[in-house]
């Protein structure tokens, strides 16, 4: 049994070093490090933990706290290049254990395309992880279309993962709800923005993977369909639910019934293994969790754990 984790984060060693030495790093002022201990681990320590969890491969993404879309684009483009080079080094040192996602400076679509191109074509990364929004803009904004076209042409996977400040925050910051509800609603809005903005029609081969099981997208699509039924979405030729199978989703639902519903609505070939390593909101024993789910067949478990991801990566022969 193999397992490939699409949702696993890394904090750049270059950043850690700079902070420890009290140096500025791409406009970040030196400050005491306040990160999970695992995020300081070397690749070798990380591999030991992966071994204990039964995870064969991590598709490593530089953490969402490094998006910095609100800062100056050139500065962040340089930061992201350094992040991506470090991820690439992990994939070179341990090609059997690591694949990589890029960070790209979404505040400047031209620079974002350039870095996506470099990361995919020169560094061999599989795509890029991006936020649900860019300085208040959602992905139906026409200014992003060149990026989706470029990603489609590159065969890159666009992995959607919030970067703080979810939609729940203005109502409450208590009880961890900005994460436990906020991540999931942000993902539903991103699904809707791609679909209702016509992006999925304009880019039929675009590969978008929605983290956290796509959030509320699959459960809530019936109400989106209703708004299409009553004529509120004239710009798309099919109801939103027809687009569910156009996306990929990680399995990070924290609920067997929710995962079962996701599989039934999106299709088993669209659900990939993702754990959110090493955060406290991750699945504790992710491979064991998937393998132990009574409502999934063995084939479905294998599809999630590695087969779908191998297809997505084009390594299935």
């Amino acid at each position, binding site marked *: 049994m193999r397992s490939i984790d699409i949702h696993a984060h890394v904090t750049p060693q270059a950043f850690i070093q700079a902070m420890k030495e009290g140096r500025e790093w791409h406009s970040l002022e030196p400050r005491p490090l306040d990160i999970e201990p695992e995020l300081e681990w070397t690749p070798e320590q990380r591999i030991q933990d992966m071994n204990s969890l039964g995870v064969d491969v991590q598709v490593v993404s530089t953490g969402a706290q490094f998006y910095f879309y609100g800062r100056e684009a050139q500065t962040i483009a340089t930061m992201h290049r350094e992040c991506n080079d470090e991820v690439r080094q992990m994939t070179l040192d341990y090609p059997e254990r690591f694949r990589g996602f890029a960070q790209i400076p979404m505040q400047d679509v031209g620079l974002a395309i350039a870095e996506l191109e470099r990361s995919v074509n020169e560094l061999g990364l599989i795509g890029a992880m991006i936020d649900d*929004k860019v300085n*208040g803009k*959602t992905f*139906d904004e026409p200014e992003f279309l060149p990026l989706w076209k470029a990603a489609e042409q590159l065969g890159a996977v666009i992995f959607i993962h919030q970067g703080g400040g979810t*939609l*729940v925050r*203005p*109502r*409450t910051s*208590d*009880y*961890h*709800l900005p*994460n*436990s*509800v906020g*991540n*999931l*609603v*942000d993902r*539903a*809005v991103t699904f*809707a*923005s791609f679909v*209702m*903005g016509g992006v999925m029609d304009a880019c039929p081969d675009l590969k978008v993977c929605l983290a*956290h099981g796509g959030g*509320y997208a699959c*459960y*809530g*699509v*019936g*109400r*989106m*369909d*209703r*708004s299409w039924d*009553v004529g*509120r*979405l004239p710009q798309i030729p099919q109801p939103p639910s027809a687009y569910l199978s156009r996306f990929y989703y990680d399995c990070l*639902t*924290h*609920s067997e*019934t*929710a995962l079962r*519903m996701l599989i*039934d*609505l999106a299709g088993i070939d669209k659900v990939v293994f993702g754990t959110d390593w090493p955060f*406290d*909101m991750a699945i504790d024993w992710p491979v064991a969790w998937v393998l132990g789910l009574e409502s999934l067949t063995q084939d479905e478990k294998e599809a999630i754990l590695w087969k779908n991801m191998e297809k997505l990566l084009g390594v299935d022969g």
Partner: protein
Amino acid sequence: MRSIDIHAHLTPQCFIQAMREGREWHGVKPGEMRVGPRNSWTPEQRIDDMDSLGVDVHVVSTFSFYYYYERDAQVISAMHRECNDEVYQMTVDYPDRFKGMAIIPMQDVGLAIAELDRTVNQLGFVGAMIDDHVNGKTYDDPEFMPLWKAAEQMGAVLLVHQQGGRTLVRDRNPRYHLHNTIGNLVDRAVTFASFVFGGVMDACPDLRVCLCHGGGYTCFGAGRMDRGWQVRSEARVNIAQPPSAYLDKFYYDCLTHSEPALRMLIDTVGIDKVIFGTDWPADMAIDWPVSWILGLESLTMGEKEAILYKNMERLLGI
């Protein structure tokens, strides 16, 4: 087969009359609010439509546009009394077809309790419909506790329903009707969480809260709330059980626009907690709601009857 619809709205005739006559109405200026054709129907026209839909009883709630929690409490209190009196008259004129759901001025908890008390104990209402928040405050705020205690003591049902257009989604993407299609559902999940994580359901074990739109994303998303409760101390300050343990403390209408979602709701919260609700007369309502329920292949006849009327009769004590 009977059917009792807990989610059916009213635009008050007293408001429509004032607007037609060009009169200001409790601070609402003529022309301030648009009224659709079905919203201005008389009770008799409404009953004709209910007959065609196979709906026996509407639990009638004054539309959420009339919450006006941000306006002066005394003015809105008087508005709400007039709305509630009109709903009461409908229940008097057609006792077999209408039950009442009050609107109460949540910006002043004392006035809200007084109007809930009047409507439930004097007018025979089921309870009150309220927003997901009051001027930004969620229901874990201690200032609302006296209201929950009063509602619990009266046996009143609190029906939670957003104010149109003002949900959490609007600030992210104002297009595609998402403030409604996603916004209503996330607002309801946050309200569930506020009641639960805030300790209200523990403090008021007999409080009856019904979450509109099937409780939104609550049942699907409870797994991640549970995980948050497991790993984050700030999620455990008020409750000793994971949030999913509270799912069956609430009632939910059946307005999911999805058979698998409704099936999951039933399986997660229990069939005795799901009641019939249609959102009449909005365009986001279920078109043929009774037929829709009766035609669902994944529900047993016993489950369909529980949803259509049995659960609601139990809730109403009839």
